[in-house]
């Protein structure tokens, strides 16, 4: 099974993704940005950026990280990416597009939670001030996630809120791989995966 959907820039889309399938996002142009919200199988448990970051001692999203929920579940694993920095500290502009997409599934403003801005980098200085890095992503850059439980994924291609460059679209390819192996994961990430696999077994 394989399904590909191309989002133009400044668009939004959402899709249910079954456990075990992979979601590959590919930048269709330079300076693409994909702001992504994820909701778990029970439609209540959401991606929790602080828990994801502090359990893996990272302030950015990169390959080899498990994306964790409010309730300590593994939602998805970042299997690989051509980029080792995806922003997750600066959110999306109050997202009418994302909010509309949430509304289609019965969600609302209360569900606008922290998102990942795939393909974008916001550098942190020694004094912890932030600066958007232009040109971080170029056409063809990609990131592949594996759904570790049934998911709803919400994607907006609105340009990054700190960027004054025109954005680009993103292709979303969802497929059932024959076999995927866990990348090298921290002990905490392995624990989240094990607990999730036990719970949804």
């Amino acid at each position, binding site marked *: 099974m394989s399904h590909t959907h191309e989002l133009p820039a400044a668009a939004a889309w959402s899709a249910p993704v079954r456990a075990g399938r992979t979601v590959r996002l590919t930048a269709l142009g330079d300076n693409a940005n994909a702001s992504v919200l994820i909701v778990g199988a029970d439609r209540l448990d959401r991606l929790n950026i602080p828990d994801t970051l502090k359990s893996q001692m990272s302030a950015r999203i990169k390959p080899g990280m498990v994306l964790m929920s409010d309730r300590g579940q593994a939602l998805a694993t970042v299997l690989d990416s051509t980029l080792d920095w995806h922003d997750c500290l*600066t959110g999306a502009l109050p997202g009418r597009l994302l909010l509309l997409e949430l509304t289609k599934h019965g969600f609302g403003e209360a569900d606008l939670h922290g998102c990942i801005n795939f393909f974008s980098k916001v550098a942190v200085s020694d004094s912890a001030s932030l600066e958007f890095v232009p040109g971080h992503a170029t056409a063809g850059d990609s990131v592949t996630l594996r759904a570790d439980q049934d998911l709803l994924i919400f994607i907006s291609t609105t340009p990054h809120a700190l960027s004054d460059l025109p954005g680009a679209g993103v292709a979303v390819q969802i497929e059932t791989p024959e076999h995927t192996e866990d990348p090298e994961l921290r002990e905490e990430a392995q624990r989240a995966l094990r607990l999730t696999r036990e719970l949804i077994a």
Partner: protein
Amino acid sequence: MTVTATTVGLDTVVDAGDGALVTVPAGGRLRIVDLYGNQAVDTLFYDAHDIDNRYSAFDTIREQRAVFLTTGSRLLSTRLDELAVITDDTCGRHDTVGGACSQESNVIRYGESTRHQHACRQTFLRYGAQAGIGQRQLTHNINFFMNVPVTPDGGLTFEDGLSAPGKYVELTASRDLLVLISNCPQINNPCNGWNPTPIQLLGWW
């Protein structure tokens, strides 16, 4: 404990591991005092008249291009409304990236033996219920007095606090607010100096 704002303001102590829901009217000043030092105070802010209009950590970080909060920081909502401004701060900086401990995240980080320890998200739910604040309404919070350095190479660590006995942070409400507090009971990392302690809440309005 449940705190009700009155015309004479507020002066109360929140024990380690306990919480509070405080109503602060527009223009009111709320001071959080780290009585013994090195205590993390997990805090959420809501528009008192519309709890969907709530504190947004990442909107606050992005609009001010700063990871930490200190004097002058504007606390913004998901609609980019200003909820409050930090108008005084004797500590220096406060975290809004590290989030709140939960039973489940404790299991991930420290193992199954910590599952039934006290945790901030449970305190949030307990005190938030009376205002209709449930699981969906819990969002990424501020950790006053907590030290979570973010490094230029994208690392993140928990460090010993920068706070000390008697240091405080003071907020001025830009609109009528509900302030939901969990005085963190976390004992598995240095955020409370391994020893959770009481805080004091002072209010003038």
